[in-house]
């Protein structure tokens, strides 16, 4: 009976060591600039005014492509002062649900602040985070994830 128990101990120990090894052998990957730069999935608020901007993994900083797009949106919104918008913030599926809700809110807020700093009245813009709940591209691959890390500007009237 004792030796049986000892066997169990050593097996559990081996498992722990094995799993521990998995966690330490590999180096950490910190993903850098992997924001989507293509045009698939993009729609338009008006001619030449793309409706969405893309983000790098785990980031909410606006890329230069994003500020260009948001600049066009700001110009369009100022030319159409009765329009209101909601900025829908999204994350890719490779993250925990609750953190992604917060990340979506942070991304949408980054876009909102850029529009405000370019002269759009704050009371015309709402933010809504969907986290990873509404992917634009349902595939599980790097391209789809980059298309899903986005903030989409949607007209509400």
């Amino acid at each position, binding site marked *: 009976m004792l030796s*049986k*128990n000892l*066997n*169990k*101990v050593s*097996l*559990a120990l081996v*498992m*722990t060591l094995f*799993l*521990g090894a*998995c*966690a*330490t052998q*590999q*180096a*950490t*990957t*910190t993903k850098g600039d992997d924001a989507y730069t293509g045009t698939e999935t993009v729609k338009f608020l008006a001619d030449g005014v793309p409706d969405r901007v893309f983000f790098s993994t*785990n980031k*909410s900083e606006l890329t230069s492509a994003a500020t260009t797009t948001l600049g066009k949106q700001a110009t369009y919104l100022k030319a159409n002062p009765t329009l209101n918008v909601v900025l829908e913030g999204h994350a890719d*599926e*490779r*993250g*925990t*649900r*609750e*953190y992604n*809700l*917060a*990340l979506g*809110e*942070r991304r949408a*807020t*980054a876009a909102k*602040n850029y529009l405000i700093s370019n002269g759009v009245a704050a009371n015309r813009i709402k933010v*809504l*985070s969907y986290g990873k*709940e*509404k*992917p*634009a*591209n*349902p*595939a*599980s*691959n790097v391209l*789809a994830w980059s298309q899903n890390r986005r903030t989409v500007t949607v007209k509400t009237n």
Partner: protein
Amino acid sequence: MKYKIFIIFVLFFILTTKSFALVSVDITRGNLDPLPTAISDFYLDSKLDDKIKNLKLESKIPELIQNNLSRSGLFFALEKKSFIQRPEPAHNKPRFEDWAFIKTQVLVTGKISLEKEGRLRVEFKLWDVVSATELSALAFYTTPDNWRRVSHMISDKIYERLTGEKGYFDSRIIYVSETGPKVDKKKRLAVMDQDGYGVKYLTLGNELVLTPRFSPTSQHVTYMSYFKNLPRVYLLNIETGIQDLVGDFPGMTFAPRFSPDGKKIIMSFAQEGNSDIYTMDIKTRVVEKLTDHPSIDTSPSYSPDGSYITFNSDRSGFQQIYTMKSDGTNVKRISFGEGLYGTPVWSPRGDLIAFTKLYRNKFYIGVMRSDGSGERLLTENYYQEAPSWAPNGRVLVFYRETPSDSSGRGGGAKLWSIDLTGYNERLIQTPTDASDPSWSGLLSGK
């Protein structure tokens, strides 16, 4: 609903439990030698009418007990056809040689008889075949339609007597049922017994619902809903169906959980790109802000004594796990391994915190001590998250997703359970895809 009314159960003679048992189950390590267990059919009192006889409870109750015990991974149920002694004499006075002959170490027997007003008396006895002694005996009084609940309670008593730990079979799991295409999933709250039986849908699917969590003290659930496109935390009484908005925040509230006494809800509130942790007292509606940091602070979970909180924050630059006192002071980072950490949840036993870890594009469910030491990864997969503890802190339920192809097909979520030891990983069958599971406390209390 049913769960409140029923069962009066009576301890009728527990005195035999003091006798020394030769058989016991060690559940602190991976159990590679499940305990051989014989669960005899119960015997039916001959005075029962045909209506009750037709229910076949004499075999259904033992089968459910067997299913529970086998799924725990700690017991190996022997086949009924190998049993030599019939149910009635086995219950009254087992011939231990007959049971030792088929190499069982434990025997469960039972008797079902009729009480006043159509109620049943279900009695079981647990025998140690090795030392030829009775370990425990109990009787439960119930209505016939409540036989599943009684079977779960008997399973808990057997588990408790043989492992020295509380059971977890008389409990339920709330989760999110998922149907429809990945770009527009229909999500509904659903609740079922811990063995997957008796699924009931609590919402219609008209709005997106996420992260339901059981109250540890009542039939309340807190969850997040996109009702009217406003993502907010709600409180739902699953007996009455009445729901309430939690707090009046000018923005998104999410990641709710109850305090251990069931009196408060702790959650995140997001505003201006910053998520902080708040509590709201359910009765007084008083709101308290616990963290104040420009980073994302979310996924809070109380320690079982209510004095500490663990949560997820990216204040270091990346998602990591932190603890703090329940007044928000003494914030400490506890996860220091490589990779990202999320969804910390404190064990009901108090010693461990379960979490999700993302490392090198794989997801892990793991546990660590509440000071961050002793990290142990239990399971690795393409995607899995959101562990929730069984009421005895020995088993975790979580959800796992498979990758989808370029048209979005194949990416379903399912519920899985795994032992704290990292062994005994099992799929929990659900009628639809399922995510965000949360285990209730024991329904019978304590």
